[in-house]
Protein backbone atom coordinates (compact mmCIF):
# COMPACT_ATOMS: atom_id res chain seq x y z
CA UNK A 1 0.00 0.00 0.00
CA UNK A 2 1.34 3.43 -0.91
CA UNK A 3 1.36 6.47 1.35
CA UNK A 4 0.84 10.10 0.48
CA UNK A 5 3.35 12.75 1.57
CA UNK A 6 0.82 13.82 4.21
CA UNK A 7 0.69 10.38 5.83
CA UNK A 8 2.78 11.50 8.86
CA UNK A 9 0.10 14.12 9.60
CA UNK A 10 -2.67 11.51 9.55
CA UNK A 11 -0.71 9.26 11.91
CA UNK A 12 0.08 12.21 14.18
CA UNK A 13 -3.61 13.17 14.32
CA UNK A 14 -4.65 9.60 15.15
CA UNK A 15 -6.72 9.13 12.00
CA UNK A 16 -8.39 5.84 11.29
CA UNK A 17 -6.53 4.71 8.17
CA UNK A 18 -7.90 2.51 5.40
CA UNK A 19 -6.86 1.48 1.91
CA UNK A 20 -8.37 3.58 -0.86
CA UNK A 21 -7.26 3.41 -4.48
CA UNK A 22 -4.00 1.74 -3.42
CA UNK A 23 -3.21 4.39 -0.81
CA UNK A 24 -3.35 4.38 2.96
CA UNK A 25 -5.81 7.21 3.58
CA UNK A 26 -7.69 8.64 6.58
CA UNK A 27 -11.35 7.57 6.57
CA UNK A 28 -11.96 9.84 9.55
CA UNK A 29 -9.96 11.61 12.25
CA UNK A 30 -12.55 11.84 15.01
CA UNK A 31 -16.02 11.25 13.59
CA UNK A 32 -17.31 10.95 10.03
CA UNK A 33 -20.56 12.74 10.82
CA UNK A 34 -18.86 15.58 12.71
CA UNK A 35 -16.43 16.09 9.83
CA UNK A 36 -19.33 16.07 7.37
CA UNK A 37 -21.08 18.85 9.32
CA UNK A 38 -17.79 20.78 9.62
CA UNK A 39 -17.60 20.98 5.82
CA UNK A 40 -21.27 21.96 5.44
CA UNK A 41 -21.09 24.59 8.19
CA UNK A 42 -17.47 25.81 8.39
CA UNK A 43 -14.51 24.35 6.52
CA UNK A 44 -12.55 21.10 6.38
CA UNK A 45 -9.03 20.25 5.27
CA UNK A 46 -8.51 17.21 3.03
CA UNK A 47 -5.46 15.31 1.79
CA UNK A 48 -6.01 14.67 -1.93
CA UNK A 49 -2.45 13.65 -2.75
CA UNK A 50 -3.65 10.17 -3.69
CA UNK A 51 -5.22 11.57 -6.85
CA UNK A 52 -3.19 11.50 -10.06
CA UNK A 53 -1.89 14.80 -11.45
CA UNK A 54 -0.76 14.60 -15.06
CA UNK A 55 0.68 17.38 -17.18
CA UNK A 56 0.72 17.69 -20.96
CA UNK A 57 2.88 20.29 -22.68
CA UNK A 58 3.92 21.04 -26.24
CA UNK A 59 2.29 22.72 -29.23
CA UNK A 60 -0.05 19.79 -29.80
CA UNK A 61 -0.98 19.32 -26.11
CA UNK A 62 -4.57 20.56 -26.43
CA UNK A 63 -5.21 18.65 -29.64
CA UNK A 64 -3.80 15.42 -28.18
CA UNK A 65 -5.87 15.66 -24.98
CA UNK A 66 -9.00 16.45 -27.00
CA UNK A 67 -8.66 13.09 -28.75
CA UNK A 68 -8.91 11.12 -25.47
CA UNK A 69 -11.43 13.10 -23.42
CA UNK A 70 -15.16 13.69 -23.91
CA UNK A 71 -15.20 17.41 -23.09
CA UNK A 72 -13.83 20.08 -25.43
CA UNK A 73 -10.39 21.27 -24.37
CA UNK A 74 -9.80 23.57 -27.37
CA UNK A 75 -12.88 25.57 -26.37
CA UNK A 76 -11.64 26.12 -22.83
CA UNK A 77 -10.13 29.45 -21.86
CA UNK A 78 -6.82 29.71 -20.03
CA UNK A 79 -7.46 29.34 -16.30
CA UNK A 80 -10.60 27.31 -16.87
CA UNK A 81 -11.34 23.85 -15.46
CA UNK A 82 -13.86 21.35 -16.78
CA UNK A 83 -15.23 17.99 -15.73
CA UNK A 84 -14.74 15.29 -18.34
CA UNK A 85 -14.81 11.58 -18.93
CA UNK A 86 -12.13 9.41 -20.44
CA UNK A 87 -13.92 6.65 -22.36
CA UNK A 88 -13.05 3.39 -24.04
CA UNK A 89 -14.10 2.69 -27.66
CA UNK A 90 -17.45 1.27 -26.46
CA UNK A 91 -18.25 4.47 -24.57
CA UNK A 92 -17.58 2.90 -21.16
CA UNK A 93 -15.91 5.16 -18.63
CA UNK A 94 -12.18 4.62 -18.05
CA UNK A 95 -12.21 7.47 -15.53
CA UNK A 96 -13.87 10.76 -14.68
CA UNK A 97 -11.38 13.59 -14.44
CA UNK A 98 -10.87 17.33 -14.27
CA UNK A 99 -9.14 19.11 -17.13
CA UNK A 100 -7.21 22.30 -16.30
CA UNK A 101 -6.09 24.76 -18.96
CA UNK A 102 -3.02 26.59 -17.77
CA UNK A 103 -1.24 29.20 -19.91
CA UNK A 104 1.27 26.80 -21.44
CA UNK A 105 0.01 23.37 -20.45
CA UNK A 106 -2.93 21.12 -19.71
CA UNK A 107 -3.40 19.29 -16.42
CA UNK A 108 -5.52 16.24 -15.85
CA UNK A 109 -6.46 15.27 -12.30
CA UNK A 110 -7.59 11.64 -12.14
CA UNK A 111 -8.89 9.18 -9.54
CA UNK A 112 -6.33 7.39 -7.35
CA UNK A 113 -7.61 3.95 -8.28
CA UNK A 114 -7.20 4.70 -12.01
CA UNK A 115 -3.74 6.27 -11.90
CA UNK A 116 -1.82 3.28 -13.20
CA UNK A 117 -4.43 2.37 -15.79
CA UNK A 118 -4.48 5.91 -17.16
CA UNK A 119 -0.72 6.23 -17.04
CA UNK A 120 -0.63 3.41 -19.60
CA UNK A 121 -3.58 4.74 -21.61
CA UNK A 122 -2.28 8.30 -21.77
CA UNK A 123 1.24 7.03 -22.36
CA UNK A 124 -0.11 5.30 -25.48
CA UNK A 125 -2.31 8.16 -26.68
CA UNK A 126 -0.67 11.40 -25.56
CA UNK A 127 2.44 10.92 -27.66
CA UNK A 128 3.95 12.09 -30.90
CA UNK A 129 5.81 15.18 -31.96
CA UNK A 130 5.10 18.29 -29.87
CA UNK A 131 3.33 16.42 -27.09
CA UNK A 132 5.02 15.74 -23.75
CA UNK A 133 3.20 13.77 -21.07
CA UNK A 134 4.45 13.89 -17.51
CA UNK A 135 3.24 12.39 -14.23
CA UNK A 136 3.58 15.14 -11.61
CA UNK A 137 1.57 13.33 -8.91
CA UNK A 138 4.52 12.79 -6.62
CA UNK A 139 6.06 16.24 -6.91
CA UNK A 140 2.86 18.25 -6.40
CA UNK A 141 0.81 17.83 -3.25
CA UNK A 142 -2.93 18.48 -3.41
CA UNK A 143 -4.76 19.80 -0.35
CA UNK A 144 -8.40 20.90 -0.30
CA UNK A 145 -10.13 23.38 1.97
CA UNK A 146 -13.87 22.92 1.57
CA UNK A 147 -16.77 24.70 3.19
CA UNK A 148 -18.61 28.02 3.37
CA UNK A 149 -15.79 29.68 5.34
CA UNK A 150 -13.03 28.53 2.96
CA UNK A 151 -12.82 31.79 1.00
CA UNK A 152 -12.75 34.11 4.01
CA UNK A 153 -10.22 31.90 5.79
CA UNK A 154 -7.83 31.55 2.84
CA UNK A 155 -8.10 34.96 1.21
CA UNK A 156 -5.82 36.80 3.69
CA UNK A 157 -3.07 34.23 3.12
CA UNK A 158 -3.20 33.77 -0.66
CA UNK A 159 -2.01 36.13 -3.36
CA UNK A 160 -2.52 35.56 -7.05
CA UNK A 161 -1.43 37.18 -10.31
CA UNK A 162 -3.75 35.51 -12.84
CA UNK A 163 -6.72 36.96 -11.00
CA UNK A 164 -6.89 40.05 -8.80
CA UNK A 165 -7.36 38.14 -5.55
CA UNK A 166 -8.84 34.90 -4.21
CA UNK A 167 -12.46 36.16 -3.98
CA UNK A 168 -12.33 37.02 -7.70
CA UNK A 169 -11.32 33.47 -8.62
CA UNK A 170 -14.46 32.02 -10.22
CA UNK A 171 -15.98 28.57 -9.84
CA UNK A 172 -13.95 25.96 -11.75
CA UNK A 173 -11.08 28.40 -12.33
CA UNK A 174 -7.40 28.05 -11.47
CA UNK A 175 -4.76 30.65 -10.67
CA UNK A 176 -1.13 30.74 -9.69
CA UNK A 177 -0.88 31.33 -5.95
CA UNK A 178 1.51 32.20 -3.19
CA UNK A 179 0.41 30.82 0.16
CA UNK A 180 1.66 32.85 3.13
CA UNK A 181 1.20 30.95 6.36
CA UNK A 182 3.55 30.15 9.24
CA UNK A 183 5.90 32.93 8.15
CA UNK A 184 6.68 31.07 4.91
CA UNK A 185 5.90 31.76 1.29
CA UNK A 186 5.00 28.75 -0.79
CA UNK A 187 4.36 29.02 -4.51
CA UNK A 188 1.91 26.83 -6.37
CA UNK A 189 -1.59 26.99 -7.76
CA UNK A 190 -5.12 27.23 -6.38
CA UNK A 191 -8.47 26.31 -7.94
CA UNK A 192 -12.06 26.85 -6.87
CA UNK A 193 -13.07 23.22 -7.20
CA UNK A 194 -14.16 20.40 -4.93
CA UNK A 195 -16.11 17.24 -4.43
CA UNK A 196 -18.32 18.21 -1.52
CA UNK A 197 -21.12 20.39 -2.88
CA UNK A 198 -19.74 23.34 -0.92
CA UNK A 199 -17.67 26.31 -1.96
CA UNK A 200 -14.00 25.53 -1.56
CA UNK A 201 -10.53 25.40 -2.96
CA UNK A 202 -7.86 22.94 -3.95
CA UNK A 203 -4.20 23.87 -3.48
CA UNK A 204 -1.30 22.45 -5.49
CA UNK A 205 2.00 22.87 -3.65
CA UNK A 206 5.48 21.35 -3.76
CA UNK A 207 5.28 17.88 -2.20
CA UNK A 208 8.30 18.39 0.03
CA UNK A 209 6.52 21.28 1.76
CA UNK A 210 3.15 19.58 2.08
CA UNK A 211 3.32 18.58 5.76
CA UNK A 212 4.54 22.00 6.89
CA UNK A 213 2.00 23.75 4.68
CA UNK A 214 -0.82 21.64 6.17
CA UNK A 215 0.28 22.41 9.74
CA UNK A 216 0.77 26.11 9.03
CA UNK A 217 -2.57 26.31 7.25
CA UNK A 218 -4.38 24.65 10.14
CA UNK A 219 -2.67 26.97 12.59
CA UNK A 220 -3.54 30.04 10.50
CA UNK A 221 -7.19 29.05 10.12
CA UNK A 222 -7.67 28.13 13.77
CA UNK A 223 -10.17 25.82 15.38
CA UNK A 224 -12.98 26.45 12.92
CA UNK A 225 -11.11 24.24 10.44
CA UNK A 226 -10.81 20.54 11.08
CA UNK A 227 -9.02 17.80 9.17
CA UNK A 228 -11.56 15.69 7.29
CA UNK A 229 -11.29 12.14 6.02
CA UNK A 230 -12.45 10.33 2.91
CA UNK A 231 -15.49 8.98 4.80
CA UNK A 232 -17.18 12.37 4.85
CA UNK A 233 -15.85 13.15 1.38
CA UNK A 234 -17.99 10.24 0.21
CA UNK A 235 -21.16 11.27 2.08
CA UNK A 236 -20.67 14.90 0.97
CA UNK A 237 -20.26 13.99 -2.71
CA UNK A 238 -23.24 11.62 -2.58
CA UNK A 239 -25.48 14.35 -1.14
CA UNK A 240 -24.19 16.66 -3.88
CA UNK A 241 -25.11 14.04 -6.51
CA UNK A 242 -21.55 13.63 -7.76
CA UNK A 243 -20.50 10.26 -9.18
CA UNK A 244 -17.71 8.14 -7.71
CA UNK A 245 -15.68 5.90 -9.98
CA UNK A 246 -16.25 2.24 -9.11
CA UNK A 247 -19.77 3.07 -7.94
CA UNK A 248 -21.71 5.10 -10.52
CA UNK A 249 -19.02 4.73 -13.20
CA UNK A 250 -16.95 1.91 -14.63
CA UNK A 251 -15.72 0.52 -17.96
CA UNK A 252 -19.18 -0.97 -18.68
CA UNK A 253 -21.11 2.21 -17.87
CA UNK A 254 -21.50 5.10 -20.31
CA UNK A 255 -21.71 8.72 -19.14
CA UNK A 256 -25.06 9.34 -20.85
CA UNK A 257 -26.85 6.71 -18.73
CA UNK A 258 -25.07 8.14 -15.69
CA UNK A 259 -26.56 11.59 -16.34
CA UNK A 260 -23.22 13.16 -17.26
CA UNK A 261 -24.11 14.37 -20.76
CA UNK A 262 -22.93 17.86 -19.73
CA UNK A 263 -19.37 16.52 -19.79
CA UNK A 264 -19.66 14.97 -23.26
CA UNK A 265 -19.30 17.02 -26.46
CA UNK A 266 -20.69 14.65 -29.05
CA UNK A 267 -20.14 17.12 -31.90
CA UNK A 268 -16.51 17.83 -31.05
CA UNK A 269 -14.56 18.17 -34.32
CA UNK A 270 -11.82 15.59 -34.97
CA UNK A 271 -13.52 13.16 -32.60
CA UNK A 272 -12.47 11.41 -29.41
CA UNK A 273 -12.21 7.82 -28.24
CA UNK A 274 -15.72 6.50 -27.64
CA UNK A 275 -17.48 9.27 -29.60
CA UNK A 276 -19.23 7.00 -32.11
CA UNK A 277 -20.50 4.66 -29.41
CA UNK A 278 -21.75 7.55 -27.25
CA UNK A 279 -23.48 9.21 -30.22
CA UNK A 280 -25.36 5.97 -30.84
CA UNK A 281 -26.40 5.66 -27.16
CA UNK A 282 -27.55 9.30 -27.16
CA UNK A 283 -29.61 8.75 -30.31
CA UNK A 284 -31.21 5.47 -29.23
CA UNK A 285 -31.63 6.58 -25.62
CA UNK A 286 -29.96 4.75 -22.73
CA UNK A 287 -31.59 1.53 -21.52
CA UNK A 288 -31.06 2.52 -17.89
CA UNK A 289 -30.42 5.75 -16.07
CA UNK A 290 -29.05 6.90 -12.77
CA UNK A 291 -31.70 8.09 -10.33
CA UNK A 292 -31.77 9.42 -6.79
CA UNK A 293 -33.88 7.98 -3.97
CA UNK A 294 -34.66 8.52 -0.34
CA UNK A 295 -34.72 5.15 1.40
CA UNK A 296 -37.63 4.79 3.81
CA UNK A 297 -36.68 3.58 7.29
CA UNK A 298 -33.29 3.56 8.93
CA UNK A 299 -31.48 0.87 6.99
CA UNK A 300 -29.19 2.35 4.32
CA UNK A 301 -29.28 0.80 0.84
CA UNK A 302 -25.73 -0.11 -0.17
CA UNK A 303 -23.92 -0.61 -3.46
CA UNK A 304 -25.13 -3.82 -5.11
CA UNK A 305 -28.55 -3.92 -3.42
CA UNK A 306 -31.23 -4.73 -5.98
CA UNK A 307 -34.13 -2.42 -6.92
CA UNK A 308 -37.54 -3.97 -7.51
CA UNK A 309 -40.83 -2.88 -9.10
CA UNK A 310 -43.26 -5.48 -7.80
CA UNK A 311 -41.95 -8.85 -9.01
CA UNK A 312 -39.54 -7.37 -11.50
CA UNK A 313 -35.94 -6.52 -10.67
CA UNK A 314 -35.42 -3.19 -12.42
CA UNK A 315 -32.16 -1.85 -11.08
CA UNK A 316 -29.18 -1.84 -8.79
CA UNK A 317 -27.91 0.56 -6.13
CA UNK A 318 -24.57 2.22 -6.96
CA UNK A 319 -24.05 4.23 -3.76
CA UNK A 320 -26.03 4.52 -0.57
CA UNK A 321 -25.47 5.94 2.86
CA UNK A 322 -27.17 7.75 5.67
CA UNK A 323 -27.21 11.44 4.75
CA UNK A 324 -25.80 13.39 7.70
CA UNK A 325 -27.25 16.66 6.34
CA UNK A 326 -30.74 15.34 5.57
CA UNK A 327 -30.97 12.87 8.45
CA UNK A 328 -32.16 9.85 6.48
CA UNK A 329 -30.65 7.29 4.09
CA UNK A 330 -30.17 8.29 0.45
CA UNK A 331 -29.13 6.21 -2.54
CA UNK A 332 -28.30 6.39 -6.21
CA UNK A 333 -29.35 3.52 -8.42
CA UNK A 334 -29.36 2.58 -12.08
CA UNK A 335 -32.97 1.86 -13.02
CA UNK A 336 -34.35 0.55 -16.33
CA UNK A 337 -35.48 3.46 -18.52
CA UNK A 338 -38.96 1.99 -19.11
CA UNK A 339 -39.80 2.22 -15.39
CA UNK A 340 -42.01 5.29 -14.84
CA UNK A 341 -40.65 8.04 -12.60
CA UNK A 342 -43.49 7.57 -10.12
CA UNK A 343 -43.38 3.75 -10.01
CA UNK A 344 -43.41 2.36 -6.45
CA UNK A 345 -39.90 0.89 -6.16
CA UNK A 346 -38.30 -1.04 -3.33
CA UNK A 347 -34.71 -1.90 -2.45
CA UNK A 348 -33.84 -5.37 -1.18
CA UNK A 349 -31.16 -6.03 1.42
CA UNK A 350 -30.70 -9.56 2.78
CA UNK A 351 -34.24 -10.53 1.86
CA UNK A 352 -35.99 -7.54 3.39
CA UNK A 353 -37.39 -4.69 1.34
CA UNK A 354 -37.57 -0.95 2.01
CA UNK A 355 -39.60 1.50 -0.08
CA UNK A 356 -37.71 4.01 -2.24
CA UNK A 357 -38.97 7.54 -2.71
CA UNK A 358 -37.74 9.10 -6.00
CA UNK A 359 -35.85 12.37 -5.46
CA UNK A 360 -34.28 14.59 -8.08
CA UNK A 361 -30.46 14.70 -8.00
CA UNK A 362 -28.63 16.32 -6.32
CA UNK A 363 -30.00 15.54 -2.85
CA UNK A 364 -28.37 18.69 -1.49
CA UNK A 365 -27.63 22.09 -3.05
CA UNK A 366 -25.85 24.77 -1.10
CA UNK A 367 -27.35 28.23 -0.76
CA UNK A 368 -25.48 30.79 -2.81
Amino acid at each position, binding site marked *: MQKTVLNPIHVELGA*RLVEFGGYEMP*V*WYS*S*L*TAEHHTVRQRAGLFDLCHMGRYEITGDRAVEAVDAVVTNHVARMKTGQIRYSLVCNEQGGVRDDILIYRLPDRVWLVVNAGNRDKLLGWFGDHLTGPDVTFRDRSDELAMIALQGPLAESLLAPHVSTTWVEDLPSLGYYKISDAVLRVGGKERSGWISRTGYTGEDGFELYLPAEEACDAWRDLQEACGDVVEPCGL*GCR*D*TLRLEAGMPLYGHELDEETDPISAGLTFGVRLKKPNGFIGQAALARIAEEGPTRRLRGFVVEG*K*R*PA*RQGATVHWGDRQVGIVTSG*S*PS*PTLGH*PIACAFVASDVPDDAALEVET*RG*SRSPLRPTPLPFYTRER
Partner: protein
Amino acid sequence: MADVPGDRRYLSSHEWAIEQDGTITIGITAHAAEELGELVFIDLPKVGSEVSAGESFGEIESVKAVSSLNSPISGTIVEVNDELESSLETIGESPYEGGWMLKVQPSDPGEYEGLLDADAYASQLDG
Protein backbone atom coordinates in the same frame (compact mmCIF):
# COMPACT_ATOMS: atom_id res chain seq x y z
CA MET B 1 -5.80 -0.02 23.62
CA ALA B 2 -9.41 -1.08 23.89
CA ASP B 3 -10.82 -2.66 27.04
CA VAL B 4 -10.93 -6.50 27.09
CA PRO B 5 -12.62 -7.75 30.31
CA GLY B 6 -11.31 -11.01 31.72
CA ASP B 7 -14.72 -12.34 32.79
CA ARG B 8 -15.79 -13.54 29.33
CA ARG B 9 -14.77 -15.27 26.08
CA TYR B 10 -14.20 -13.96 22.58
CA LEU B 11 -14.32 -14.69 18.87
CA SER B 12 -11.51 -13.42 16.66
CA SER B 13 -14.18 -11.53 14.68
CA HIS B 14 -14.64 -9.29 17.77
CA GLU B 15 -17.77 -10.69 19.43
CA TRP B 16 -17.84 -11.58 23.14
CA ALA B 17 -19.83 -14.17 25.07
CA ILE B 18 -20.44 -14.49 28.81
CA GLU B 19 -22.08 -17.38 30.63
CA GLN B 20 -24.59 -16.54 33.35
CA ASP B 21 -26.99 -19.04 34.91
CA GLY B 22 -26.92 -21.37 31.92
CA THR B 23 -27.59 -18.76 29.24
CA ILE B 24 -24.95 -17.02 27.18
CA THR B 25 -25.07 -13.29 26.49
CA ILE B 26 -23.48 -12.04 23.25
CA GLY B 27 -22.24 -8.64 22.10
CA ILE B 28 -19.36 -6.96 20.26
CA THR B 29 -16.09 -5.79 21.80
CA ALA B 30 -15.03 -2.23 22.56
CA HIS B 31 -12.43 -2.61 19.80
CA ALA B 32 -15.11 -3.57 17.27
CA ALA B 33 -17.36 -0.69 18.33
CA GLU B 34 -14.45 1.72 18.00
CA GLU B 35 -13.50 0.41 14.55
CA LEU B 36 -17.08 0.68 13.27
CA GLY B 37 -17.49 4.34 14.21
CA GLU B 38 -20.94 5.89 14.21
CA LEU B 39 -23.63 3.24 13.98
CA VAL B 40 -26.79 3.77 12.00
CA PHE B 41 -28.57 0.42 11.82
CA ILE B 42 -28.69 -2.99 13.45
CA ASP B 43 -30.45 -6.09 12.20
CA LEU B 44 -30.94 -8.67 14.98
CA PRO B 45 -32.79 -11.99 14.77
CA LYS B 46 -35.99 -12.84 16.64
CA VAL B 47 -36.44 -14.69 19.94
CA GLY B 48 -36.78 -18.40 19.27
CA SER B 49 -34.54 -18.50 16.21
CA GLU B 50 -31.40 -20.60 16.10
CA VAL B 51 -27.80 -19.40 15.91
CA SER B 52 -24.72 -21.42 15.00
CA ALA B 53 -21.19 -20.99 16.28
CA GLY B 54 -19.10 -18.91 13.88
CA GLU B 55 -22.10 -18.07 11.68
CA SER B 56 -23.70 -14.70 11.07
CA PHE B 57 -26.75 -13.84 13.22
CA GLY B 58 -27.20 -10.28 12.00
CA GLU B 59 -25.65 -7.13 10.65
CA ILE B 60 -24.51 -3.86 12.06
CA GLU B 61 -24.02 -0.75 9.94
CA SER B 62 -21.96 2.34 10.45
CA VAL B 63 -22.26 5.39 8.21
CA LYS B 64 -19.48 3.90 6.12
CA ALA B 65 -19.94 0.14 6.07
CA VAL B 66 -21.90 -3.00 6.87
CA SER B 67 -20.44 -5.65 9.17
CA SER B 68 -21.64 -9.13 9.89
CA LEU B 69 -22.33 -10.17 13.49
CA ASN B 70 -21.13 -13.70 14.23
CA SER B 71 -22.36 -15.94 17.00
CA PRO B 72 -19.67 -17.35 19.32
CA ILE B 73 -21.88 -20.32 20.17
CA SER B 74 -24.78 -22.47 18.89
CA GLY B 75 -28.23 -22.46 20.43
CA THR B 76 -31.66 -20.88 20.63
CA ILE B 77 -32.21 -17.16 21.19
CA VAL B 78 -34.12 -16.53 24.42
CA GLU B 79 -33.84 -12.74 24.54
CA VAL B 80 -32.95 -9.90 22.13
CA ASN B 81 -31.89 -6.41 23.19
CA ASP B 82 -34.63 -4.56 21.30
CA GLU B 83 -33.61 -1.24 22.81
CA LEU B 84 -30.47 -1.10 20.68
CA GLU B 85 -32.42 -0.29 17.52
CA SER B 86 -33.41 3.09 18.92
CA SER B 87 -30.25 3.70 20.96
CA LEU B 88 -27.34 2.40 18.88
CA GLU B 89 -24.92 4.66 20.73
CA THR B 90 -25.22 2.30 23.71
CA ILE B 91 -23.04 -0.19 21.81
CA GLY B 92 -20.13 2.26 21.71
CA GLU B 93 -20.74 3.68 25.18
CA SER B 94 -21.21 0.36 26.97
CA PRO B 95 -20.17 -2.49 24.67
CA TYR B 96 -19.91 -5.06 27.50
CA GLU B 97 -23.02 -4.15 29.49
CA GLY B 98 -25.90 -2.11 28.01
CA GLY B 99 -24.72 -2.93 24.48
CA TRP B 100 -25.44 -6.68 24.73
CA MET B 101 -27.30 -8.07 21.72
CA LEU B 102 -28.58 -11.62 22.32
CA LYS B 103 -29.12 -14.13 25.12
CA VAL B 104 -28.81 -17.69 23.90
CA GLN B 105 -29.68 -21.07 25.42
CA PRO B 106 -26.62 -23.06 24.29
CA SER B 107 -27.14 -26.39 22.52
CA ASP B 108 -23.51 -27.42 23.11
CA PRO B 109 -22.23 -25.97 26.41
CA GLY B 110 -18.71 -27.23 25.58
CA GLU B 111 -18.38 -24.60 22.83
CA TYR B 112 -18.02 -21.80 25.35
CA GLU B 113 -14.78 -23.22 26.75
CA GLY B 114 -13.36 -23.45 23.25
CA LEU B 115 -13.60 -19.69 22.66
CA LEU B 116 -10.65 -17.29 23.02
CA ASP B 117 -9.96 -16.06 26.52
CA ALA B 118 -9.28 -12.38 27.19
CA ASP B 119 -5.50 -12.74 26.86
CA ALA B 120 -5.71 -14.59 23.56
CA TYR B 121 -8.15 -12.05 22.14
CA ALA B 122 -6.12 -9.08 23.43
CA SER B 123 -2.93 -10.44 21.90
CA GLN B 124 -4.72 -10.70 18.56
CA LEU B 125 -5.50 -6.97 18.82
CA ASP B 126 -1.84 -6.22 19.50
CA GLY B 127 -0.81 -8.13 16.39
